């Protein structure tokens, strides 16, 4: 059974449709890249999967041990976070908040998990530092460590490299790849960088006027034959 299956999904806000007829499924260990033009509804799709935005119609089904609320999420950065007084450790620990249930304080196990994920993201030296004083790449790694505290199975990343310099971008992609390969975490990533998306992913979901879902190879074949992807994607291919 698939980890996540979307059937005939229709996305939108307050009854106004953005996208309809989405059909795709994600298996354990997949690395799915979601591509498409700005404003095509990529972030909305992610929020709908997470239950932040209600779907207009269609089904979202979790399986294979994945449950709603046990998915790690790295949102597109918001302004609020930029000047927030919080240490790296506080933010990573907050990824454990859902595991607490009614407990008011973090347990030893929670703190241990946070420490491990801080280490995994190479942030141990920075763990007492203030989030707002870190570089963009470091900030994204903090949020990734937080997301890891919330999940064992799947990560949803919304443009994790936007605004990062080439070096930090490369580092971020490597980290995500490692999580996918070594820890077997399923990755669903939004990216507007088609080249990188195709380098690392196993499956591609293209949304927009044309919807495509399939393996990376199928997507590449399709690109070669028809130049089916419009806009940015088409250019970077040609």
């Amino acid at each position, binding site marked *: 059974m698939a980890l996540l299956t979307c059937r005939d999904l229709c996305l939108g806000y307050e009854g106004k449709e953005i996208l309809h007829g989405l059909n795709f499924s994600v298996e354990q260990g997949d690395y799915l890249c979601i591509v498409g033009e700005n404003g095509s509804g990529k972030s909305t799709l992610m929020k709908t999967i997470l239950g932040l935005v209600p779907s207009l119609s269609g089904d979202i089904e979790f399986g294979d041990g994945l449950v709603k609320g046990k998915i790690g999420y790295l949102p597109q950065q918001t302004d*609020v976070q930029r000047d927030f007084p919080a240490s790296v450790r506080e933010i990573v620990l907050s990824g454990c908040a859902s595991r607490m249930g009614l407990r008011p304080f973090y347990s030893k196990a929670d703190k241990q998990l946070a420490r491990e994920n801080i280490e995994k993201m190479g942030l141990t030296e920075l763990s007492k530092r203030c989030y707002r004083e870190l570089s963009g790449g470091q900030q994204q790694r903090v949020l990734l460590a937080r997301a890891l505290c919330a999940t064992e199975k799947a990560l949803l990343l919304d443009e994790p490299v936007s605004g990062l310099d080439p070096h930090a971008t490369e580092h971020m992609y490597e980290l995500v790849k490692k999580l996918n390969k070594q820890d077997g975490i399923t990755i669903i990533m939004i990216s507007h960088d088609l080249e990188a998306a195709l380098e690392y992913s196993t499956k591609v979901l293209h949304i927009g006027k044309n919807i495509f879902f399939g393996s990376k190879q199928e997507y590449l074949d399709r690109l070669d034959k028809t130049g089916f992807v419009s806009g940015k994607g088409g250019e970077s291919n040609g």
Partner: protein
Amino acid sequence: MADAFDKLYTYITEYEFVQNALIVGVLIALCSSLLGVTLVLKRFSFIGDGLSHVAFGAMTIAAVLKLTNDMPLILAITMISAVLLLRTGKNAKIKGDAAVAMISVSALAIGYLLMNIFSSSSNLSGDVCTTLFGSTSILTLSSTEVWLCIGLSAVVIAVFVLFYNKVFSVTFDEDFARATGVKASLYNLILAVVIAVIIVLAMNLVGSLLISALVIFPALSAMRVFKSFKSVTICSGVLSVFCALLGICIAIVYGTPVGSTIVAVDMGAFAIFTITGKFVGRSAK
């Protein structure tokens, strides 16, 4: 100066109303500053102002209805407004700050209108001024009011400590919290109720116009110097209590209005923290 200390010492040891004022002042300052950090970060700095105007409107309604115990009505109306305001969030048609401003002026206008139409008092503007600036009501507290304040403050502080970690996660990133199964709307509701309680309490101390100062100044000062959520929260609480104590003492000795004096002290603290923050920031680099 020694005279002033003598005078203060005599007042504090001999007059119960001074002791009451200090107890209530410290508690209100502590509660409002704890929540202040979250409110400032959630871009709801003005909710204190808005809600206190709502409470003022509610107070005039209670007066028109000739209720002897107006507290329950004021609390209820303020809580409902707080819930509605905090619920609006990001996707609302009317944005947070505009919604607060709208409710605030409406409540103020209705309140004043009601007072004007129904009040039998000869000194109307004096009454309004007292409600808005709090003038001396903190020095005329009954023992019931003091106990009510102690009880409610204890509840507020307990709720804050118990939900501290969840409040952090909801304040830092509400979407992430909700996505990972934290009941963000529940915590927002709790926050709203607690804020309403604090506002109604604080009206006795500084009056409705100056509550915003009590909510935002300590938080803003603390953020100038400290870098983690925990240290900002603790510093903000300590600073607020200190400023309230100092303000009340100055007010007693020199006969100045309590609310304005506390706010003046808060402003002074903010200036000091801003300069310290600049200095610390530079030496760190």
